């Protein structure tokens, strides 16, 4: 009765101890995100407004930055290169996606898979390959010279390499956007006798506009924040990403490094915000009543699309095939006979054997730990009740990593974990910090995948369990987890592949004991051992491929065991 007599007092439900346990775990995840994400980012911000001795200097570092012409050149270089790549890659990827989603082209599955294979290798593999094609001893150097390009090192190399590195990322987004079509619109247009071109410009393009915007944003950000490609093929052409590295590792100028890192953060953050906005629009466009679009065969169109996709894949094959080929020749370009020399050199002399084991260890721990944390976190967010003050914070922390370029995150880790007064200082240079950094770096995609999978489950499972007095973790174990295994496998593979191929975040964090194979590529390249660098890049791609096949097998087995209920 007291609540009735005291209208000011809100009724508060008692929290069951099982729910308290859930809150505790969610709290721990939040704490981990604060320590390993918010902490390092705050450290960068702090560093950017301090001088070398740690005194607060306001915006002096920023003024100094904008007064340095060389650094401003890099800013301009970064922007125009990223814009150029975006303008080129989005239409190219759109056409490919259009072929996949809207034509009756044969072998679509194979086309799609092949177009996505660049994701298995570090982005700088394409840069290495272009050095073989157009470099000082390149096969097609004379062709390049006749086109008026003096050297592949610099902007031309970066643009070409980025085109190939970014293409699959843009493709994934655009295929999704073009697959979400409502056939009823096209039927209505047909009933009104609309021409193909008009349908394309009035239905297809507007329907995919958010996807196109998203693809453009992602391409721009990927290019501007990528470190490997400009490092390998950039020559004297400076960009923001290489500046950060030079300032921090070369000149030990942490303050200016922090300022440049914040410059990198800006476009990524902007992209992220726009993208979130766009995503919301995109999903609300398709109602439950929409009828999926079915493609109709059309000989000429399908043939043209097949030809286009074949050409794209051929170019891709030329790029990655060259790296593969070069990694196996004895002495480019003089002796093209088969040899494992580069592999032997890389693995033995370059001590890649330990680096390779380290990389596998990192990938394994990241995929295991990352999947567990991401999924448990997403589950507690989506399916449990209470602790309402904690949830928006966790949601924000889970989304931020997508907006943070790897270089920036890695730099933040140096500032944060290398600080002598930080009690976590002991983690610096350890495998643990590499794992933590990599999990955080790729957290958002995993989180969103898990959220999507969880949202597709009936929201009342937990209510039913509570009414049956079954604690939520039993339902998690018996129902949620088995239903979500396909998503779990996806998340785990995503973490594994990215941990294998990532360079940008970990380049600041490795120690002699925790060297990674992706980073040895950079070192080999710097030492002029480009053959060995190519060999190691191929090695990573081959490992990723093997792991993908392994995951396919696991997925198939698990599906048979846990998804039997799906078949009627």
């Amino acid at each position: 009765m007291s609540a009735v007599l005291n209208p000011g007092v809100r009724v508060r439900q008692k929290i069951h101890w099982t729910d308290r346990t859930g809150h505790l775990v969610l709290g721990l995840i939040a704490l981990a995100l604060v320590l390993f994400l918010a902490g390092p980012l705050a450290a960068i911000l702090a560093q950017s407004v301090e001088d070398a001795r740690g005194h607060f200097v306001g915006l002096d570092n920023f003024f100094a930055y904008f007064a340095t012409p060389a650094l401003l050149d890099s800013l301009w270089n970064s922007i125009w290169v990223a814009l150029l790549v975006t303008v080129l890659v989005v239409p190219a990827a759109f056409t490919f996606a259009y072929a996949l989603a809207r034509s009756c082209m044969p072998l679509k599955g194979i086309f799609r898979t092949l177009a996505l294979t660049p994701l298995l290798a570090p982005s700088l593999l394409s840069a290495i390959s272009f050095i073989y094609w157009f470099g000082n001893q390149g096969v097609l150097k004379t062709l390049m010279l006749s086109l008026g390009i003096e050297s592949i090192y610099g902007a031309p190399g970066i643009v070409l390499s980025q085109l190939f590195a970014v293409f699959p990322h843009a493709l994934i987004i655009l295929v999704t956007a073009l697959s979400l079509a409502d056939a009823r619109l096209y039927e209505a247009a047909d009933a009104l006798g609309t021409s193909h071109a008009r349908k394309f410009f009035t239905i297809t393009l507007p329907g995919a506009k958010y996807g196109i915007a998203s693809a453009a944003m992602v391409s721009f950000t990927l290019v501007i924040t990528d470190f490997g490609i400009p490092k390998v093929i950039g020559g004297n052409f400076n960009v923001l990403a290489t500046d950060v590295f030079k300032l921090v590792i070369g000149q030990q100028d942490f303050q200016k490094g922090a300022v440049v890192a914040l410059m990198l953060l800006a476009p990524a953050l902007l992209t992220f915000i726009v993208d979130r906005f766009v995503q919301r629009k995109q999903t609300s466009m398709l109602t439950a009543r929409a009828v999926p679009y079915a493609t109709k065969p059309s000989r000429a169109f399908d043939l043209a699309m097949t030809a286009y996709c074949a050409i794209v894949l051929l170019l891709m094959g030329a790029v990655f095939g060259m790296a593969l080929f070069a990694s196996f020749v004895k002495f480019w370009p003089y002796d093209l006979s088969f040899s494992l020399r580069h592999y032997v050199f890389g693995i033995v002399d370059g001590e890649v054997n330990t680096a390779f084991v380290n990389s596998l260890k990192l990938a394994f721990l990241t995929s295991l730990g990352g999947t567990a944390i991401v999924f448990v976190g997403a589950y507690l967010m989506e399916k449990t009740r209470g602790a309402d003050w904690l949830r928006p914070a966790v949601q924000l922390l889970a989304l931020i990593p997508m907006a943070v370029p790897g270089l920036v995150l890695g730099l933040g880790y140096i500032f944060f974990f290398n600080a002598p007064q930080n009690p976590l200082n002991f983690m610096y240079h350890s495998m643990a910090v590499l794992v933590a950094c990599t999990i955080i770096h790729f957290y958002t995609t995993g989180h969103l995948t898990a959220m999507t999978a969880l949202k597709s489950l009936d929201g009342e499972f937990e209510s039913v369990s509570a009414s049956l007095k079954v604690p939520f973790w039993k339902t998690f174990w018996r129902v949620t987890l088995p239903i979500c295994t396909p998503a779990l496998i996806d998340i785990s593979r995503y973490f594994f592949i990215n941990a294998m191929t990532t360079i940008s975040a970990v380049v600041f964090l490795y120690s002699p004991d925790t060297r990674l194979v992706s980073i040895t590529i950079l070192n080999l390249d710097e030492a002029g051992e480009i053959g060995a660098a190519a060999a190691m890049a191929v090695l990573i791609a081959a490992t990723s491929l093997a792991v993908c096949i392994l995951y396919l097998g696991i997925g198939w087995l698990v599906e048979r065991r846990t998804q039997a209920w799906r078949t009627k």
Partner: protein
Amino acid sequence: MDQALQRQDGKTLTAGTAPPGASFLRLEGIRKDFGAFTALRDIRLEVPQGEFVCFLGPSGCGKTTLLRIIAGLEAQTAGSIYQRGRDISVLPPAQRDYGIVFQSYALFPNLSVFDNVAYGLVNRRAAGKTIEDRVADLLKLVGLPDSATKYPAQLSGGQQQRIALARALATSPGLLLLDEPLSALDAIVRVHLRQEIRSLQQRLGVTTIMVTHDQEEALSMADRIVVMNQGVIDQVGTPLEIYREPATPFVADFVGKVNMLSATIEGPGRVRVGTRSFSGASANGSAGRSVRAYLRPEDIVARPISEGDSNVVESKIEKIEFLGSYCLVRVTADGLENQPLTVYLSLNFLSEQNLAEGSALRLRILTERMRIFDA
């Protein structure tokens, strides 16, 4: 009227047999705010043991929120809930005693029917054989004895609904909560399951609260109906009371079809509509007061009418809407001044009398059935 009838004015109309506090479930002053929006205000209700109660109202009236508050799935902003005299107001769902069936059924898709029904039993560490027997009994009870090894996706919607019911009943809860359990089913299955759930509930004697927006469902299943509108209870009563004696214009309008007429009180029992005066209405109040008179279509009859009957109007048929054995007929009556009436006439009557649109028709108004509300 029922012995424990609550009204929105908060007065408890308690009469006779059941002593206060003997009710199985008691809600006191329940209020729910979502930010600045008040979804429920001052909800008082008592439900006796074994009763089947329907929360009826349009979408957004707060009926599902109220059910979820009883289940503990939402916390009320203020107010208390007592079940069997125990204060459960602040208990989490797991410490309350109820079984629940959702509109979506929420069957675990990756578990067999057996495992679904046994889900709550296994947790209580019952012995394997006991569980098997219990599940078999429950499946027999809901009429699906051979479905234990199937997965939910292999069952029809109606069958899934029964399994959800069996799962909710497995732990023998004191209270069964049904959240629009039939609305996802097609019409024929729905009507069939309606009676099945009702007879199952009567056999088990389990106190049941069902949320529905379907008045037919509520009228045919419930012992008592709680009509809700915009976060308050408008009326609590048996189906017949709700239909015949709606307490508010909203209830009259929401449950069944009704003619709404602007009228004026002329004296005790006398109301004037247009230029016509009618007698025998249960109308009180000062003469000259403007009121609204609510009249069901079936309370305007075409036969029997004898010479000398009062409250008879001459009318002309404007439109006949064919509904099967009955037709919904709209007429304009002399003297009612642009207030058309809707009446039900049987198809047979229409053809016997050779009535069509434009025909003249004499009607008698059962004024004692008229409900008078303030204008």
